[in-house]
């Protein structure tokens, strides 16, 4: 029984380290998905990406007002340039997220987690 308990405790340690690593990674990606422009600050998420793409599709490409994270109105003079920037940042951050997440998922012990 002692051996099983020791194993369980070791696994519990691993789970906690894993949970902290995952939380830290998620927050790191959230920071990468923050974009400051024209006095505003935007959270790059699917909603922003879709909205911007829809505006461009509707030919609203210049002098568009977007609400930033703080619900402040921000004038974007060139929406295509803004779209390209947020898409680049989104793909770069999410690929990093995937890569790093797979690394921590594959690590099956505290020791290997610390090397990720």
């Amino acid at each position, binding site marked *: 029984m002692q051996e099983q308990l020791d194993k369980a405790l070791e696994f519990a340690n691993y789970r906690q*380290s894993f949970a*902290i690593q995952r939380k830290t990674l998620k*927050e*790191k990606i959230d920071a990468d998905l923050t974009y*400051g422009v024209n006095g505003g*600050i935007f959270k790059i998420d699917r909603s922003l990406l879709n909205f911007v793409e829809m505006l461009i599709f509707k030919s609203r490409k210049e002098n568009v007002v977007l609400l930033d994270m703080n619900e402040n109105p921000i004038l974007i003079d060139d929406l295509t340039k803004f779209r390209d920037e947020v898409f680049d940042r989104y793909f770069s951050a999410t690929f990093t997220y995937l890569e790093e997440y797979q690394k921590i998922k594959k690590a099956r012990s505290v020791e290997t*987690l*610390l090397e990720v």
Partner: protein
Amino acid sequence: MSKGIIIFAHNNRQIDYIRMSILAAKLANKNLQVPVSLITDPSTIDWMKESNIEKTVTETFDNIIITQRPDDTNNIRNYDDGKYRVHAPFNNGNRCSIWDLTPYTRTLMIDADYLTLTDTLSNYWDIDSDLLVSSKYNDIQGSERIGYLDTHISETGVEMLWATTVMFTKNETTKMFFDLVAHVREKYKMYSDIYRFNPIIFRNDIAFSIARHIMNGYQKIEEPNLPDIFSTIDKDVLVDVNNSRLKFLIAQNNSDDYIATTVSNKDVHVMNKFSIMRNYDRLMELT
């Protein structure tokens, strides 16, 4: 508009803040690409000369601004180093003087134990807001270790701001704000009665929170803030730095049981100053 970072460093007998500030400055300069200035005092400068780091300090900082050491002889706090505890003066009562002392029109103030490992704060220079302060504490372990007094100045008081990172534009509004912070500091006991917080130790976080509450007409107003302060507490221990990974032992729910974890490419507030100093050379490799 000139942009720059300010770090305060007032040594005490236990902690060499000026050496710590060199590390914080080099990391911030590398990742945010703006100059960094130091605010310090004559006795810390003497120590700097004695310990032969004058050249490094001069090379690291854009300006060295010498001011009077804050009179914090009675402001003694506990500094934990993992399971060990040290008592030392907490010389931080002059943050409100930053408005007068900063040479920049847009200033970012960071603590000497705040390690800037990313360019995240660069996003905030041009935000259309005169004053930005972090409004949330983000504990490395998670919400289990965050108590009510980490989010509010007292059981019945207003929400806490974290003066670990503060960004402001030098203008009349922010002058008013920092004058209010100075006033709260001066009348700290009186404000502790009004806001019902413990006045034993002067905390900038509390003075900043009250000043903003007063400036906002004693109301909570939604306004832009700096990112949450991602922190390790002083009971946590930075054990190693390897390939840009900071390895920590985290005191599980503030107990004496520790969990291992790493942090990389993320700004982190390391409250255990002793463990920063133990890993100083390895941390300097990141600059």
